């Protein structure tokens, strides 16, 4: 039995032995309450903040000059804005998968990474939301997409996938936010009771809503939390499905396929877990959290990446197969164009990043080495970005009529906006780890042996 566990990589504990309620509480809350702000934190936050300012500058210039400053044109009207939107929103999906789906499946190892992953979801969705907003060209009129009585006598068109997207993404953000917040309430009460700084006590006290850990409260709390998990599960699967409908409902070759919803969802989780690894590996090192984010977490996440990577590979295979099997000349041309056209080098890079290199995760040595995991995660994130680039740009640049073919070249404004959102994401993550407990303290307590109650 022990050997089998060892072979499955389950031997690593979820929490290192020797911890008690008090040590778990102290260790996690001290990061927020007593630990001095380190130099590396200041440097990291400053970089993130500076890039955020660059993004705001790029957006400011966009508002003044219009979307002509970007590389988009006709036929490639979508460009970076939609590529980045899909990439970011996909990254967010891992957070909800960890917090909701693994909750329903009773995977208790999720307890030490869910808070952190949910925060990542929120920041990723914020970064994602910027892109369609500024891509509209007149972001100050974006509220026209919501149904509200207005003097123009106008209402949104509910047969359009773009309106479905507005509803899916805004619901996703709202539910992720409240899910994250109610998860935080008991921990905010812990911070309220433990902080010595009067200002912090008041702020945490207000946010904790007067939580006192009553048995009645816990009972309703757990029901609400479980129901939210149950609601968030179909929601997260629906969000990337709806995003894929933005493409699949159109008749453009390369977009009009039924494989898109499952393949988009798998790709989202794939890139999301890669982002979780990218962040968790350095953070557990910097804050000495190896006791809580153990090798078990890294291994499990690597396995999820491996499995979702295979689903993504199947999606690519099916796309290629349908290009040949459908006998449709536009579909076959699309396949040829991907493999040999002007963007072929990126298609091959995508195959290497998403299918080739991540197969290394099949080896346990790779799954247990934080450095290799971090590098493979980086490769997957690049690969998933390339996937969206291929889907958006290569499909649009050569469609049915040769006279309307074109090429897409991103400008510096495209890059500044994209890199700027990464800075915003980074700055938000840095702020989060500094002012809120990045690991759910009360859920960690439930994992300790002393929490067990005999009937």
């Amino acid at each position: 039995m022990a050997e089998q566990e060892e072979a499955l990589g389950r031997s690593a504990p979820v929490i290192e032995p020797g911890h008690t309620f008090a040590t778990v509480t102290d260790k996690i809350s001290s990061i927020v309450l007593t630990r001095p702000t380190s130099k590396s934190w200041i440097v990291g936050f400053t970089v993130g903040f500076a890039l955020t300012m660059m993004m705001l500058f790029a957006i400011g210039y966009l508002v003044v000059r219009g979307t002509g400053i970007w590389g988009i044109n006709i036929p490639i009207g979508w460009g970076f804005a939609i590529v980045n939107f899909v990439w970011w929103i996909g990254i967010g999906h891992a957070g909800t998968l960890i917090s909701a789906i693994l909750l329903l499946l009773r995977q208790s190892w999720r307890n030490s990474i869910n808070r952190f992953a949910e925060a990542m979801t929120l920041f990723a969705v914020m970064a994602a939301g910027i892109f369609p907003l500024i891509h509209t060209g007149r972001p100050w009129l974006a509220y026209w997409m919501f149904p509200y009585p207005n003097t123009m006598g106008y209402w949104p068109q509910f047969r359009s996938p773009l309106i479905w997207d507005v509803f899916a993404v805004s619901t996703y953000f709202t539910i992720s936010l409240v899910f994250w917040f109610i998860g935080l309430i008991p921990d905010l009460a812990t911070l309220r009771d433990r902080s010595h700084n009067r200002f912090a006590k008041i702020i945490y006290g207000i946010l904790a809503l007067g939580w006192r850990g009553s048995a009645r409260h816990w009972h309703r709390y757990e029901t609400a939390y479980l129901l939210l998990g149950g609601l968030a599960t179909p929601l997260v699967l629906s969000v990337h499905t709806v995003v894929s409908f933005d493409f699949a409902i159109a008749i453009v070759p390369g977009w009009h396929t039924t494989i898109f919803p499952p393949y988009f969802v798998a790709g989202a989780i794939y890139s999301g877990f890669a982002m979780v690894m990218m962040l968790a590996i350095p953070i557990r090192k910097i804050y000495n959290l190896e006791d809580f984010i153990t090798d078990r977490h890294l291994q499990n996440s690597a396995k999820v990446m491996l499995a979702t990577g295979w689903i993504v590979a199947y999606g690519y295979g099916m796309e290629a197969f349908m290009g040949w099997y459908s006998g449709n000349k536009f579909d076959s041309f699309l396949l040829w164009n991907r493999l040999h056209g002007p963007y072929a080098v990126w298609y091959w890079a995508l195959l290497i990043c998403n299918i080739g290199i991540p197969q290394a995760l099949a080896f346990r040595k790779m799954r247990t080495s934080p450095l290799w995991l971090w590098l493979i995660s980086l490769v997957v994130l690049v690969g998933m970005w390339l996937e969206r680039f291929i889907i958006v740009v290569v499909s649009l640049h050569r469609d049915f009529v040769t006279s309307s073919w074109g090429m897409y070249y991103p400008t510096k404004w495209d890059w500044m906006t994209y890199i700027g959102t990464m800075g915003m994401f980074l700055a938000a993550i840095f702020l989060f780890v500094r002012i809120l407990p990045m690991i759910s303290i009360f859920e960690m307590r439930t994992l300790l042996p002393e929490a067990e109650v005999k009937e």
Partner: protein
Amino acid sequence: MSAHEKHQHPVYGLMAEFASAQDLIEAANRTREAGYKKIDAYSPFPIEGMAEAIGFHKNGVPLVVLIGGIVGGLTGYALQYWIATMAYPVNVGGKPFHSWPSFIIVTFEMTILFAGLSAVLGMLALNGLPMPYHPVFNVPRFALASKDRFFLIIFASDAKYDAAGTRQFLEGFHPRSLSEVPS
């Protein structure tokens, strides 16, 4: 609580502190069995069976969520139906105005949105939160209820409550500390 009642119950209750979840749940079970009805337990994490131990069975959250979900779904569909057929009918490629398959997604999202917000707001409302002040916070040791200690309270409003007798009863559990909670 009126001034008259306040005079009747100068204390809010008696609170016993325990070092483990096991001690708390055993004490709560025996307190309930002894006939005390108005009791509560406080712990730094949810304990399975704790709600039953203090005799709490009514949990309104699932019903609130169900109603929220139904209202959300109906609102979403009705909104789209009304807009597409009455308020702003647009002929798209000769498709019927009531093109219901297109309305499923927004109906679904509204169901989840309303149900999810009902879960959160319903849970908070039923729990009476936010409540910045509560008498139990007057006990200095109660700050540990969010760390590693477990508390059982018998409210002074309980019919069986009697300052000396209840104190003696709680002392029988050998608690870590026993405090009177001022009202």
